[in-house]
């Protein structure tokens, strides 16, 4: 029975692979045979040769001193950055004052009514409950501060992103120029550009908003460009034949046709901006992020969670509401839709005024739930009982120690032992096998740039942690994803869990991972796995579920067992999705390298954190740049060319 399974989808793969692979490898070997002895003769050294590094310390230090000395007097600051900074402060303040004036009742009513109009009754109820929960957790004022910051940051990101996207969507040249810029903006760890932003704008809200814009604008730009380029050719031609000007075509046809992508871009931008809310607290943004960060100072997981939950709630509500708005697009407008908006507006104002008259603007102190205490008790119990001395399986600290000695150490030592040119060769081979010679070249150049920056050794340390974390993430993620794809129940149960893990500020689980795994690289890996897992699970599940039902049906009729179906039909057919999961896993793990630095991961993550803490632009920026290069290299090595071609459409 087992022999009669469908092998059809697999035939194509070896056929394609047969020819180019040996040829590419042979060429590479030839190049290596000529170049390596040359390189070795000149710079015989295992690690990156010192002769090939450039020291950026001096110019960067000079730049930061110049900024500090001239910030209060130079025209560039007085007439340009100063105005930007002031505008941000004024805008955030205006939104904040409006929110305060509406009072808790008014804000909750307005939120629920907007959700009702956009997304229906259920989401309206959810939104209302979410806002009230923020109040009950004692976080009303910080929630409003974060909301004010978010409103301004998202509007600015959308404006910047849409402008960039418009340029990239209308001009091929701009598209080519902008693509690497957007890539860099997204891979650059937020921590690394907090410092330059702080130097220019000073601590606090303006710097936080601008750092958020850098982080959150790229998805808007990408999706805008995608939407404009994807517009139906026939419709455009029809419009053109009407004798419209280019601008009319843009406004009446191309932009309206792209509105689904535009809304998706808005959705992505909101999510990215929220995930910056906590990181930005490190530079004094205030609000919920600051509460999370302050709670960590006294090692109070419960209090950190109390501030983290409102962030999760805001994220889920905003995600669902903008998502629903995107789906509702294109539906026939309901009769009387405009009138209902008016009713909603009037109702919100009425509630706000009523709250005001009742003298209930501030959230009443008596209405507070104290979740900090039970949470801390639970964390204490967990660490008391799991840390060590669990019979048979050993405690988490023992696992962590074994993981460090048996996995992390050997991988790191091997990477650092490899001669530098052989690392470049391996990168070239991997990137070339999966892509073109261009991919290979950019991967090698990215890796070489790390050497030139003079952080070769710590980067390989970070790389070893990333590889270990990705391996664990993929093993867990594929297993969970397969389970979720096979059972609707599992998927339903998993969804809220994944939501929480994806949006909970990473700072919150900093203490639990240390309490469970001790200080070092093991908790850093654990934090990365927790963060990257949801995306991998989601993509795997979706990929498996989208496998053509006909192929499944066919294999079933041939008598394949579920396991055989999975192995021989679903997994091969879902290969593109699985590869995407690998790629996303790598990118997300890399995003948590910084958090790793905060729990003893050392290497690049620590240097970025140290750069910010010491106001040392050179250390922080160089380590940040190395993380970008590492991310670029890993992206090239894990992302097949076909998909890149599609992505850039």
């Amino acid at each position, binding site marked *: 029975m087992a022999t009669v399974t469908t092998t059809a989808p697999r035939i194509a793969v070896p056929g394609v692979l047969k020819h180019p692979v040996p040829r590419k490898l042979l060429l590479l070997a030839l190049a290596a045979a000529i170049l390596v002895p040359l390189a070795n003769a000149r710079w015989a050294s295992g690690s990156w040769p010192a002769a090939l590094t450039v020291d950026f310390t001096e110019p960067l230090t000079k730049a930061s001193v110049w900024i*500090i000395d001239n*910030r*209060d007097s130079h025209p560039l600051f*007085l*007439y340009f*950055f*100063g*105005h930007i900074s*002031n*505008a941000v*402060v*004024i805008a955030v*303040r205006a939104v*904040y004052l409006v929110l305060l004036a509406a009072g808790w009742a008014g804000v909750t009513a307005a939120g629920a009514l907007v959700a009702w109009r956009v997304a229906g009754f259920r989401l309206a109820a959810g939104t209302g409950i979410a806002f009230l929960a923020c109040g009950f957790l004692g976080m009303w004022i910080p929630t409003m501060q974060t909301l004010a910051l978010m409103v301004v940051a998202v509007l600015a990101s959308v404006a910047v992103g849409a402008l960039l996207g418009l340029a990239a969507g209308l001009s091929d040249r701009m598209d080519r120029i902008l693509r690497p810029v957007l890539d860099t903006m997204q891979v650059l760890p937020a921590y690394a550009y907090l410092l330059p932003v*702080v130097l220019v704008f*000073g*601590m*606090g*809200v303006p710097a936080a908003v601008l750092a958020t814009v850098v982080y959150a604008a790229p998805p808007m730009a990408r999706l805008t460009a995608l939407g404009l380029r994807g517009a139906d050719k026939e419709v455009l031609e029809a419009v053109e034949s009407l004798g419209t000007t280019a601008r009319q075509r843009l406004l009446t046809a191309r932009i309206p046709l792209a509105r689904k992508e535009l809304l998706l871009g808005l959705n992505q931008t909101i999510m990215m901006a929220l995930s910056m809310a906590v990181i930005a607290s*490190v530079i*004094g943004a*205030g609000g919920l992020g*600051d509460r999370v960060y*302050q709670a960590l*100072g*006294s*090692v109070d997981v*419960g209090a950190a969670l109390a501030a983290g939950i409102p962030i999760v709630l805001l994220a889920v509500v905003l995600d669902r509401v903008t998502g629903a708005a995107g789906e509702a697009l294109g539906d026939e407008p309901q009769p009387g839709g405009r009138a209902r908006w008016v009713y909603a507006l009037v109702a919100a104002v009425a509630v706000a005024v009523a709250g005001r008259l009742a003298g209930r603007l501030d959230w009443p102190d008596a209405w507070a739930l104290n979740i900090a205490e039970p949470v*801390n008790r639970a964390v204490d119990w967990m*660490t*008391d009982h799991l*840390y*060590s001395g669990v019979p048979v399986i050993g405690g988490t*600290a023992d696992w962590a*120690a*074994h993981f*460090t*000695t048996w996995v992390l150490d050997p991988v790191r030592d091997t990477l650092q032992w490899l001669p530098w040119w052989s690392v470049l060769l391996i990168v070239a081979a991997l990137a070339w096998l999966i892509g073109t010679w261009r991919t290979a070249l950019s991967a090698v150049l990215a890796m070489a740039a790390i050497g030139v920056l003079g952080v070769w050794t710590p980067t390989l340390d970070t790389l070893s942690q990333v590889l270990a974390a990705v391996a664990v993430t993929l093993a867990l993620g594929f297993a969970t994803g397969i389970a979720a794809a096979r059972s609707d129940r599992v998927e339903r149960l998993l969804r809220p869990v994944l939501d929480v893990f994806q949006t909970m500020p990473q700072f919150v689980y*900093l*203490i639990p991972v*240390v*309490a469970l795994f*001790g*200080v*070092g*690289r093991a*908790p850093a890996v654990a934090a990365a796995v927790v963060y990257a897992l949801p995306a991998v699970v989601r993509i795997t599940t979706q990929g498996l579920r989208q496998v053509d039902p006909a192929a499944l049906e066919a294999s079933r009729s041939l008598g394949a067992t579920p396991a055989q179906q999975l192995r021989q039909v679903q997994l091969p057919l879902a290969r593109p999705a699985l590869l995407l999961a690998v790629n996303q896993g790598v990118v997300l793990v890399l995003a948590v390298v910084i958090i*790793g630095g*905060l*729990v*003893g991961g*050392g290497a690049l*993550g*620590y240097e970025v*954190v*140290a750069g*910010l*803490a*010491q*106001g040392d632009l050179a250390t922080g920026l160089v380590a940040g740049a190395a993380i970008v290069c590492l991310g670029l290299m890993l992206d090239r090595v894990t992302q097949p060319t076909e998909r890149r071609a599609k992505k850039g459409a």
Partner: protein
Amino acid sequence: MTAVVAGVSSLALLTGCGAADMTKQASPFANAQGAKTVTLSVQSWVGAQANVAVAQYLLEHKLGYRVDTVQIDEVPAWDALSQGRVDALMEDWGHPEEEQRYVKDKKTIVPGGDLGVTGHIGWFVPTYFAEQHPDVTDWKNLDKYADQMRTAESGGKGQLMDGSPSYVTNDKALVENLDLDYQVVFAGSEAAQITQIKQFAKEKKPFLTYWYSPQWLFKKVPMTEVKLPEYKEGCDADPEKVACAYPHTPLQKYLNADFAKTGGEAAALLKKFKWTTEDQNEVSLMIAEQKLSPEEAAKKWADSHESTWKAWLS
């Protein structure tokens, strides 16, 4: 192009034409609803939280201010202070370079006097271990115990645990210059370091850590200092060649220069704020161990130490 021009001109309109003074930008959350506001910077350790909690309580309940707090590391806090983003820094452990730049050269920050607490950094072992092995408290004998201090992270050597990168530390140079068989492992944040120390203490394991006093954790995990070669003025001048202990530092307060002049009662209170190590530890312990909110802790302390803070108000 028109959009850019329109954007720039509307920016100028919004913010008032002409020069924008970057030194005069308070937080957008300050002075909301017409209250007088003071913005204090808090550093990540609980001692600093305790200072701010008490100052905040007195400012709010005795003088009717509204207080905003912002958590930032020390060096960025100096920067924020000079720009007026925060009004005061309540506990500074000595930053000569920043002092030269902002206090002496730019005059945007003024000293706010002693906090009354003396800080000291050092190497510590848990007291339960020091009692069993009294000779561990001299650096010369540390190598003997390197084996017992080993962890997966420290390779074959003993582990010397350091904390947040924002803290003043010479430990890497010290280990090298004193030729010790130890590896400095950076916990990366104080939260991580405290969590690890507590875990070690729960199991009564030996460990060696960078730590500082005053610190509430001593009440929870008693620790004994390891004697390093004696500190002499200037022995830590060259960061590469340091081979001596850390100094005892009387902790300082700093105020934004404008705020010091125009801050009225609030500035006066913050300048007079001066208490003892015991006072600070009492509040810290309530915050960190009994998990009282900083406000409750400050209230408790204020209720039982009226004579101390009455003097700051006058």
